[in-house]
Structure formats: C-alpha cells, structure tokens
C-alpha cells in the first residue's frame, strides 16, 4: 500500500467553549470546554466504507462535520489525498468541497422548501462549475435514475416527496459533483424499514459503480453490517475500537462495543426473558477527567481504568485492529450475549 489513504485524520480534536458568565470571567477561572472530539485518528481508503458507530455524545456527528470542514478543528490535522486540508479557507476551501459531500439525517430540514428538485440537486454543480441553468438541469436529469427517482420530477418541490424520496434527492445532490468521499450522517434513521433497505441497497450499488468512499455515521448496527468494510466505534469523543466489520461486529473486544452489540434488539423472541445489565448514563463531555471514560459503566472495570487513559493499541495478531482497553487481552473472548442476564438473575 504505497498510495496514501484517501482521508486521514490525525489526532483530531474539536472543543466547543462554554460561554462564561461575567463573574467567572473576572474571577480568572479558565474557560470550560465540551470535548466533542478528543484526539481521533483514523483513515478511509478510496472506494471503501468506514462505519462510525456511537450513541449520543460520542462525537461521531461532529467528526463527520469536521471531515467535510463544516467545522474547523481545534487541534490535529486532516489530510485528503495526501494533502493537508486542515487550514483551507475561502475560495480554496469551496473549490475543495467538490471532493467531499454530505447527506444529512433529517430528510425534511436538509432540503430548502423553496427550491425545486433540479435546483437542490444541482446546487453543488452551480457552486463549483459556473454551469448554465440548462446544463445543470441536463446533468441532474441524467443523475436521477441512479438514485431511483424518475427523470421527470425535476420541477417538483421537496414537500411532494416522502422521506425516502427526499433522501434520494439529498443523495443526488451529493453525487452531482462526483465526489471521492461521501459523508452519510444517519441517512436512514428517519425512514421505515422497507425504505431503509431500498436506500442501503442503492448506496452499495452506487459505491460499486462510482468507486466512492463512504463515511457512514450511524447508531444502526445492522446498517453498518450491510454497508461497511471497516468499523470504528466512538464513545464520548474518543475512538475505542477500530477494525474490519466482521471482526468488530462479530467478535468485539472493547467492553463498550460489547455493550452496544448486546443492546441492539434482535428478532429473537427468546430475548423476552433476558435482561440488559449495563447501567448508567453517558457522563459529561465537559473537561473530562483522566481515566477511561467508560469506567463508570464498564462491567470489567479495575482500579487502573479509573486513573489511566487507555491508549489505542494494535491488537496482537491483527495489526489493523485497534482497541483502547487496559484489559483487552482478558475480556476479548467474552461474547456480548453474556452481558444479557436471564430473567430472575440479579
């Protein structure tokens, strides 16, 4: 592998300052920050899909926005195609945007209600190319069948479509400039099961046809299983596990990954009799203390976990596999299903 990866994040950080009251300011107390993303390093290769799993507060959405430079980083570097794009701004940034596009979660809010389909889907084209109106219409019309929309709906408005239709329009917008990477932020969360299946099929087909890379950000483990080649798991702004999809989803090592996989409801009526035993809530993102951030909820916690940050280390036997746990060796063979106790057990 001598070609650099398409996207490389190097210890990326994003902090959001909490506004201080006037008295705090004068008292000289340092400002507090929300550590939304706290030192994440990962790569995405050309044409592959990296699934980014996490729950609220994990920072996965913020990371996705950092990748498409809708936020600027507080620390760390972002490299795209070998070039450092962390500091891009102004016209250079806008020109670079044709390489990375986004599909958002909210099918209603992500489309301007005042615009027609060709205007929405053609917006990146107009912003990048200075193309005329008829040329944009022609290109959008040619693009629509590949996302499953009829070519004659160019002049319709977004409100005339259902949720699945709107996501297709979003997808068409993202694809219009033939980006090399598409960031998909929970693309199917607002959709019904049958429509989700359609959109996921579509995403895989398009990836094969156009050789694009995807950064799939979601909490839906089944969607990741279908679409992703590699998986990264985030918790409270940090990466806790990274590896191939099969390895992470079928044989998770990190306790949080195990807890997440165990929590996903399966179509199994025997689970009527099981009880989920991981308690606790997500602790605060504000100036977190040192130590493993999952320590408060981890069923395998030891004293060391509470004081020492576990580094993301390669997993013996599988160099592509990274886990951030002090007890990775000992807990690795415990299956997620063991976190589900049968009814009656305490």
């Amino acid at each position, binding site marked *: 592998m001598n070609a650099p990866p398409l996207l490389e994040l190097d210890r990326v950080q994003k902090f959001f300052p909490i506004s201080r009251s006037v008295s705090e300011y004068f008292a000289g107390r340092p400002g507090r920050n929300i550590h939304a993303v706290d030192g994440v390093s990962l790569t995405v290769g050309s044409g592959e899909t990296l699934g980014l799993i996490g729950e609220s507060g994990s920072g996965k959405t913020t990371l996705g926005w950092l990748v498409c430079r809708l936020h600027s980083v507080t620390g760390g570097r972002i490299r795209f195609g070998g070039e450092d794009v962390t500091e891009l701004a102004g016209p250079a940034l806008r020109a670079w945007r*044709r390489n990375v596009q986004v599909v958002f979660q909210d099918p209603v809010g992500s489309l301007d209600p005042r615009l027609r389909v060709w205007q929405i889907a053609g917006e*990146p084209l107009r912003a990048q190319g200075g193309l005329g109106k008829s040329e944009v219409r022609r290109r959008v019309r040619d693009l629509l069948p590949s996302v499953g929309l009829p070519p004659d709906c160019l002049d319709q408005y977004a409100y005339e479509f259902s949720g699945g239709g709107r996501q297709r329009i979003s997808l068409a917008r993202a694809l219009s400039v033939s980006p090399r990477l598409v960031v998909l932020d929970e693309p199917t969360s607002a959709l019904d099961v049958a429509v989700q299946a359609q959109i996921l099929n579509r995403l895989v087909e398009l990836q094969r046809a156009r050789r694009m890379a995807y950064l799939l950000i979601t909490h839906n483990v089944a969607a990741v299983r279908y679409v992703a080649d590699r998986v990264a798991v985030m918790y409270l702004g940090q990466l806790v596990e990274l590896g191939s999809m099969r390895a992470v989803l079928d044989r998770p090592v990190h306790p949080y990954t195990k807890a997440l996989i165990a929590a996903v409801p399966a179509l199994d009526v025997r689970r009527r009799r099981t009880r989920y035993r991981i308690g606790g809530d997500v602790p605060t993102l504000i100036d977190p203390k040192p130590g493993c951030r999952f320590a408060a909820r981890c069923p395998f916690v030891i004293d060391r976990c509470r004081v020492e940050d576990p580094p993301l280390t390669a997993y013996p036997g599988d160099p592509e596999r990274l886990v951030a746990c002090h007890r990775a060796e000992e807990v690795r063979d415990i299956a997620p299903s063991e976190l589900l106790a049968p009814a009656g057990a305490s």
Partner: protein
Amino acid sequence: MGVRDTLRLFWAVLRANPLTLAGFLMVAVLCGLAGIMAIDPWLLVRYGPIQTSSASYAPPSWAHPLGTDNIGLDIYSEVMRALPLDLGIALAIVGASVLIGGLLGLVAGYWDRPGTAGGASSIVILRTTDVFLAFPSLLLALAITISLGRGPWQAVLALMLTWWPYYVRLVRGEVLAVKHLPYIQAARAAGVSEGRIVLRHVVRNILEPIVVYLTMDIGTVLVVFSTIAFVADAIPYPSATPEWGSMLSYYQQILPIASYPWLVFGPGAAIFLTVLAFSLLGDGLRDVLDPRTRRALVRSRSRPLPEVPAEASPARPDDPEAKLSGEVPQPA
C-alpha cells in the same frame, strides 16, 4: 414553494375566505384610487385644492358626497386628495423600516458568533435596538416630531426612526430559526459562498412571515402617523396637501361649535377602511404562508397529488423498486 405556486395558493385562499377576498379587493381599490389621484385627480374629484364652495356645513349630497366643512371645502375631495399621501407615507415608512431594520436584523442574526467582528457588531445592533424599543414608539415619535419642528417631513422622519427596531427583532428571530437548518449546512458543504447562501436560502425563506407582518404594519403605521399629525398638529390644514389625521385634528376642534357628524366621518372612515383592508389582507396572507393550512390547501387543489410517491414510478422496468401499485402483473 416558488412564486407561481404561492400565487396559485393565494388565489385559492381568496376563493375560500370571503374576508380575505374583501381585504384584497379593498387594498386593490385603494391603491388604484391612490394611483388615479396621483396622476389625474380630476377623474375622481370635482373640486380643486382649497376650493371652497358657497355651501358651508352642507350635509352629504350628490354634489358633496361627504358634505362640506365650515369654509365650504368639499370633504370628499379633501379625503381623496389625502389618499395618495397617506398611503404613500405609510408605505414609505414601512418600506424604509423593513430595509433598515431588516438589514440590521439579518446582520445581527446571521453573523453573530461571539468573539468575531460579526459577533461584536451583532451585540451593538441588538443593544441599540433594545434602547429604542424601551421607549413607547408613539411618544418617541411625537417627541422627535416636535423637537424637529412640526411638519409633515419631520413626522415621517420621526416615524422612520422609531419604527425600524421592530423589524430588527423580527428578522433576526427568523434568521436564527433558519440559520441552523440542515439545508444551510448542505449549501455550505456544496461550496456555495456565504453571500449566496444568505441571499438564496436565508432571505427567501424568511420572506413570508415578514411580508405578513409588514402588510398588517401598514395599517398600524397609518394610524400612528395620523395620530401624530392629530396630536402634534404637525400638518397644517386646510392646505393643498391634506392628510387624514390633520383633517381630524382640525375638525374635532370645530365640533364643539358645529357638531355636524359628517365633518369627522369622512377622514375617520378613510383611516378605518384603509387599516381594515390591510389587516384583512395580512391575515389572509398568513393563512397562505402557514405551512399547516398550506398543506391542507395544497391537497384540495384540482391537480391531484400522485397516488404513488415519485420514487416508485417506473424508472427502469427491471428496477425492483419501480413497480407502480397495481399496474405490474404479479405472478399467479
């Protein structure tokens, strides 16, 4: 929704709602009459400015539809002569306020990140607006009018100075609501420059509530302006350029000695009808622009919505998603 759709919807609301239709017609008539009066007054009135007739205090009749006053001025002519002035002043004040206040509100709402130049200017704009808003607008306008010297232009200027803060608040609120919607971020991600985002996305999406507000504001401004003219004696009457408020002020001084109701009926009714017209129209516009009622109106339009959402109509015959309901033969 584009312009054509909005207009079509507006027409549907007009048909469905008689009050709105009345308001729309009244506004149309008023504007038409004002236009005619501005171009060729003789089409509508028979008496020139400050043209007195011999009959004073004449009750309404065919020759004098609203009667005459103490010096024989035909009240109808004076009222009609005042129409373009009053309407024009109200529109000018609202227009100026929307432009100034709207621009300031846009800047204050869109570029407001703390710690940047935009953030600082936003704070300056907002606090200045707060200061203006702390005063009761009518009193402030009165004070400014009187201190500038009582005159029509002073009154107009005073109102422009007191009226823009409301629009700063209104526009800023709308901008804040729209600013964080995903489609703005999507436009940014597409590489659209900030200026274009503001014009193309933000302004177009905040236009509707502002249009509703300013339509109804025209009536309010008219009343306030007439009140200032009335209270501050800002506009002399009789004059070549009458104004309803000043007419009311003059006639109500006469009333104790000559209590003929038609004296004040004319200008009073003119103000009332104008305000009513704009209020009804504004109310109807709000129905057009409210997403909930709009959706109900959209459904009942004559053009049927497709039974099947667009994504399921046949794009390619072998596309498994492309089955239209009921039209593809199923295996037996």
